[in-house]
């Protein structure tokens, strides 16, 4: 079993059950609980870290942002994102968003991914360079690479020459590739298509030499008399045909025109569909011209493409080359749509038909608070820099909580009064069931004001196996995050007294404890364990539950043996008056004063370790 290092996850309040889909504002019960008078209804409901919903609301502190104006934690789920810039991850070239509309979301330079293994492709010359070591070689070794180029993958050794794609120039690959079909045949442009339609010579030639000429190398299609149209040509033909039909004025009005409106091939449905693609408004057309029944496309010129249902070629190929020659679902998913290809009717997808994938562009995004629209994270717009202009991370506003097992014999524990000897806790070790273990929680204050922390944890963890939890010091104050040098200078003066420092501070921290205790390693209720410049350590005692299952119980689920403690953290401090009351946690009554009492409350989950299974 994998060892588990203790962790702390913080629950973003945005996922509160009672305010679904809405960020936290003043009216939500979470804020009510955080209010000063707040015996809110959330208080008696313990957060269950094992609830399925909790999966989506728990984040490590590093993932969280903080809105300075709302004084609230913001998680990746509850921020509004805005795209700052688009760039290609391969060439780091920023793409203007205007290009994006016209050219799509892929890199239009020469950045391609291997369709087989997703590795980056490089342009290489197919021409073998004459070996300079051979004396017989002609003396043109200094000549640059020439001849056809291909994209090659240096990892899996795929090359675009395999699918018959070769390039004349080593640059502008994207534009060259757009003109090429698999097998090296050039893709027709719209103009060429039109010319071909008009040209009767081409039509007769195409009819005379049907399938072998058009099917291409890897298609090997069945010999049908119909020309194999690629998607683009077919659409263009169909469009021309139906537009001709719509424009045709002498279509007879039949008596059943009203009924035929509903049919699949009725003119109105067709004109509506056409207008979806061609962009014209269809309502006015319908109003002004009620055309009669149209005929269907009958020829390839009109866009008729009979489905080729003969799959024997594909089956034969599968027989000869096996499953390995087919493209996997993942490979097909990564393929960009290619309009230059024929229909998939009766064709299997083979790995030999995969085309190079232009790199998908990536984005840099800024993040806004969804409530007050303030920017809480904004990266530098330049692609090459990884810095941020604005980034309000939660780690610099709310105390971090570090969990560490306390290597201590529990004989002196006043919290449990239980077993006489506990084993020393090593990190990652399994927790013994029913034997008290101690964990040190170190709260570190990142802000420049002293904060007062109040902790609340259920006495028993929720879930099937309820472990007992005792927070030995649920209320304490952490000093401000002052200058490091202050502390360093202070430290040098009292280094000799370092030994009793911890004890002394422990006493001063725990307000209600009175007795002066000689054993400084003793645990005492209401006392903090250790205190530093801007941090405080307290002790949590847990008595892990036994994982023994009663007969008939469902078996242990995944990670059900991890001891997780939900803990409600309330942080109070006096900050400078921000002057807005969008944030819920800001004390509204104190808003008039120069110094304002602030408050933040949230649930967090402490994962301590796995309980040993007996």
């Amino acid at each position, binding site marked *: 079993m994998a060892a588990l290092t203790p962790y702390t996850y913080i629950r973003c309040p945005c996922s509160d059950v009672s305010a679904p889909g809405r960020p936290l504002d003043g009216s939500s019960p979470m804020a009510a609980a955080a209010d000063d008078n707040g015996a809110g209804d959330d208080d008696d409901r313990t957060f269950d870290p094992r609830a399925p919903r909790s999966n989506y609301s728990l984040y490590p502190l590093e993932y969280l942002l903080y809105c300075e104006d709302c004084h609230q934690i913001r998680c990746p789920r509850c921020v509004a994102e805005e795209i700052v810039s688009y760039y290609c991850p391969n060439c780091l070239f920023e793409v203007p968003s205007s290009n994006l509309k016209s050219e799509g979301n892929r890199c239009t330079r020469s950045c391609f991914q291997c369709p*087989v*293994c997703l590795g980056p492709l490089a342009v290489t010359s197919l021409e*073998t360079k004459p*070996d300079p*070591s051979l004396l017989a070689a002609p003396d043109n070794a200094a000549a640059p690479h020439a001849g056809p180029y291909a994209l*090659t993958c240096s*990892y*899996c*050794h*795929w*090359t675009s*020459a*395999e699918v018959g794609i070769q390039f004349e120039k080593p640059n502008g690959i994207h534009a060259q590739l757009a003109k090429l079909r698999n097998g090296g045949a050039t893709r027709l442009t719209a103009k060429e298509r039109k010319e071909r339609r008009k040209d009767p010579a081409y039509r007769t030639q195409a009819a005379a030499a049907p399938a072998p000429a058009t099917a291409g190398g890897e298609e090997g299609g069945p010999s049908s008399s119909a020309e194999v149209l690629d998607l683009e040509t077919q659409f263009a033909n169909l469009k021309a045909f139906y537009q001709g039909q719509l424009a045709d004025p002498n279509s007879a009005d039949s008596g059943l025109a009203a009924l035929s409106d509903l049919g699949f091939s009725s003119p109105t449905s067709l004109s509506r569909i056409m207008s979806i693609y061609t962009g014209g408004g269809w309502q006015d057309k319908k109003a002004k011209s009620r055309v009669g029944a149209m005929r269907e496309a009958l020829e390839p010129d009109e866009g008729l493409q009979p489905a080729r249902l003969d799959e024997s070629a594909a089956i034969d190929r599968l027989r000869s080359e096996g499953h*390995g020659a087919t493209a996997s679902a993942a490979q097909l998913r990564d393929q960009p749509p290619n309009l230059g290809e024929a229909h998939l009717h009766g064709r299997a997808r083979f*790995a030999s038909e995969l085309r190079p994938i232009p790199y998908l562009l990536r984005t840099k995004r800024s993040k806004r608070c969804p409530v007050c629209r303030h920017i809480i994270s904004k990266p530098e717009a330049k692609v090459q820099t990884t810095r941020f202009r604005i980034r309000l991370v939660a780690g610099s506003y709310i105390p971090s909580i570090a969990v560490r097992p306390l290597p201590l014999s529990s004989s002196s524990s006043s919290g449990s009064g239980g077993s006489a000897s506990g084993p020393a806790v090593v990190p990652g070790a399994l927790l013994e069931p029913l034997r008290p273990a101690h964990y040190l929680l170190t709260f570190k204050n990142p802000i420049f004001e002293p904060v007062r922390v109040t902790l609340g944890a259920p006495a028993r963890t929720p879930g099937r196996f309820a472990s007992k939890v005792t927070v030995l010091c649920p209320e304490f104050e952490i000093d401000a995050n002052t200058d490091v040098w202050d502390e360093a200078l202070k430290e040098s003066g009292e280094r000799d007294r370092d030994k009793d420092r911890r004890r002394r501070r422990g006493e001063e921290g725990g307000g209600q404890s009175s007795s002066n205790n000689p054993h400084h390693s003793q645990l005492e209720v209401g006392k903090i364990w250790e205190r530093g410049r801007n941090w405080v350590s307290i002790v949590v005692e847990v008595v892990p539950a036994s994982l023994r299952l009663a007969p008939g119980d469902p078996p242990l689920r995944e990670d059900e043996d991890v001891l997780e403690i939900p803990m409600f953290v309330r942080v109070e401090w006096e900050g400078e008056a921000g002057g807005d009351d969008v944030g819920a946690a800001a004390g509204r009554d104190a808003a008039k004063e120069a110094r304002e009492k602030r408050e933040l409350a949230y649930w967090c989950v402490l994962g301590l370790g796995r309980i040993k299974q007996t």
Partner: protein
Amino acid sequence: MSSKRHSILPPVSQTGPKPPVNFSSTITIADSALLTGTHTITVHGESVIHPRARLDSLAGRVTVGRRCVVQERATLGAAAAVPAAAAAAPPAEAAAAVTLGDYVTVEVGAVVEAGGTVIGEGTVVGVGARVGAGAVVGKHCTLTAHTEIAAGEVVPDFTVVYSNGMRRTDKRGVAELKNKGLARQIDVLRRMIPSNPAKFA
């Protein structure tokens, strides 16, 4: 300018018996290569054995073809990870443990297990790859980094094994070109690696 670089690794310690060797006069073998075993180790012409490469002939003969490169910490003739497979191999006295064809590159940290393993001409065994005992790898194959070929497996010619055992056929047809490139690389390596075949004789 001193070209002497000192390794931070502990010095190579020769353990085990010293094998009989059969070196071509044109090979380059580093001083700190490790040759152990009881059977003959044959290295054909113009091959390069990097420092700390380990050739182990305890289980049988180790043959390295012409113009091969065995890089650092690569192991030829390692004891089989699965002993059962080794037992299946013929335990004849003069059995070949590992046979490398010509133009084979065994990259850093790769392991070729003993037991009649054959690696065909022009094949590249990638960084940290492992070829099981008795496997027969065809000609001009590429085993990318950290791939594993199971014991006794037969890999056809021109196979590329990539990304956790996916396979495809190399259709580039650049075998000749690759061999030329390797020849040039060997030219450089011969100048870089001080050769000391006499140490192993």
